């Protein structure tokens, strides 16, 4: 190739480089749209809801008068529903993940379960609401209670926890298992004493992401027919007489943060929109904190583990 041709080729490459710049600009612009959307969303809620964000707002029940209304029953409801969700979904999800990754034989049944978990992750959340309405509320007779809502959201985040468990188990090298078997451990001892403890940070990441999704879910909870105007608290889970715990709250009516926000959003009065903004701010703040913890956990996990 003579120098003239070489110069020509370089010229062509140079002129093509312009597209690089052009696309880099487009990429930054696209990211900017995302960032801008988030900043406006967050900023608007902070500005609109700022004056409602005071201790009274957290300690008052909803009210017909916007200025007196608060989110006491909503955040208590969210907390209790999340408790049921975590208690039901975490053991089930981890157990299912362990089974699929460590125990399951290669056969038709396993294939069906695996395909099923993948597909469940794609089912719209409102369909879970219909399942809960038909089965939990009417067939099992749980009613429109905290128990129903918690179990529904538990089923909803089950695939997230199963996938997270499987991925962190898969990341543990085979020689850990072989070493433990070599010392005479049974399969369950390997799982209980080695695999589950080592994969705990990964599982926790999945659990937190799942719960942060559950806490913002609105559609399935509306579908089971949760009330929006709740001016009472469920019975306290802890009592001052023996046996000190009380499970009546499971059957109690309730409202949760996203439903309270939906209720205020759908009212035309400006004052209620302010309440919605304040509730939205708290909701976003909670999910962001949970996500941030999960991202931080994963980051630490990546840094600290070297097999």
């Amino acid at each position, binding site marked *: 190739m003579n120098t003239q041709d070489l110069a020509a080729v370089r010229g062509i490459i140079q002129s*093509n480089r312009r597209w690089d710049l052009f696309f880099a600009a487009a990429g930054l612009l696209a990211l900017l749209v995302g960032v801008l959307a988030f900043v406006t969303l967050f900023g608007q809620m902070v500005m609109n809801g700022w004056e409602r964000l005071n201790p009274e707002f957290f300690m008052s029940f909803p009210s017909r008068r916007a200025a007196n209304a608060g989110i006491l029953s909503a955040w208590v409801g969210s907390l209790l529903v999340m408790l049921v969700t975590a208690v039901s979904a975490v053991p089930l999800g981890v157990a299912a993940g362990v089974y699929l990754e460590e125990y399951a034989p290669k056969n038709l049944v396993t294939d069906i379960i695996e395909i099923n978990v993948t597909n469940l992750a794609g089912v719209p959340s409102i369909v879970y609401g219909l399942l809960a309405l038909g089965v939990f509320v009417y067939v099992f007779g749980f009613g429109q209670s905290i128990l129903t809502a918690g179990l529904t959201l538990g089923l909803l985040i089950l695939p997230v926890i199963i996938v997270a468990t499987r991925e962190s188990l898969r990341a543990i090298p085979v020689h850990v298992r072989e070493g433990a078997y070599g010392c005479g451990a049974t399969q369950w001892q390997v799982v209980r004493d080695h695999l589950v403890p080592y994969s705990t940070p990964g599982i926790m990441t999945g659990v937190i992401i799942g719960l942060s999704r559950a806490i913002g879910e609105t559609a399935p909870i509306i579908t089971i027919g949760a009330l929006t105007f709740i001016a009472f608290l469920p019975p306290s889970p802890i009592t001052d007489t023996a046996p000190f715990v009380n499970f009546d709250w499971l059957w109690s009516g309730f409202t949760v943060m996203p439903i309270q926000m939906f209720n205020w959003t759908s009212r035309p009065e400006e004052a209620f929109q302010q309440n919605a903004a304040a509730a939205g701010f708290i909701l976003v703040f909670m999910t962001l904190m949970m996500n941030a913890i999960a991202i931080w956990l994963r980051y630490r996990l990546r840094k600290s583990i070297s097999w």
Partner: protein
Amino acid sequence: MSGSQVMRMGMSSMQATVVSDRLSRKVSRNIRERAIELVLFFAASVSVLTTIGIIWILVFESYHFFENVPLWNFLTDTMWTPLFSEPRYGILPLLLGTVTTSLVALAVAVPLGTIIAIYISEFASARVRETVKPFLELLGGVPTIVYGYFALTVVSPVLQYFFPSLPGFSMLAAGLVMGIAIVPYISSLSEDAMRAVPMSLREGAYAMGSTRFQTAVRVVLPAAISGVLSAYILGISRAVGETMIVAVAAGMQPNFTMDPTEPAQTISAYIVQVAMGDLPHGSIGYQSIFAAGLSLMLLTLFFNILGHMIRRRYREAY
């Protein structure tokens, strides 16, 4: 070597000492191991039970619904007025609402998501990538009711400023915000697919004198196309099943139109509307939300199967 042989060898070499019972066979231990495996298996089958439960309740209630409403009417009638004194149950208006909002959302999410994915995977430095990815994840974690509030109180007024004839509730505002909400799903899945393309392909392209942009669009994107397409499919099924944004911002009346500047109701928003009221268990209104749910489920199932076929058809193995 069987357990008893081990025992015998142990005996002969250690005549005087008593063999520790830790080496003896324990039936209880095997039973326990099997029992634990069984418990874990039941945990895994809860997901199958969930699916069976969903299908059973949707089909069961829909069956009773179709005893009262002929299937043909359901599929062809252009009116959905279940709360009128003479109710008509045609799914088409709700279906059009769902399709229109989803199309608007995809028109936003597919270009944005793809550009962001290519940018992060092929152009951005490691530092930019490490900052942007968590941020996108946060964007994906924002509850949809908050997006709905955003569509109603920010995007709708802004759109009305530019198009004064636009109503306060519109499929356009809901669809645009839904698009923003879906971007993180599409971008993160597409980026994963592009990052999985082996470096040697890029190196080959660079050696031939390709620029970054040419490498990204003509080599990496085609090589990752099955993953990128399944990301789009996932975006579609998210959009179809999305509920709160449309329930808040798209209006609540069924509308037989595909004009995005009009208000309309989607299948999911209808379910929410009915569930907020107080419909008695077993009434036809109660059954109608299960028929709507079944339609929604079949729609997402269709896209899931399509995604599966695309993955199989275009998969490139390295």
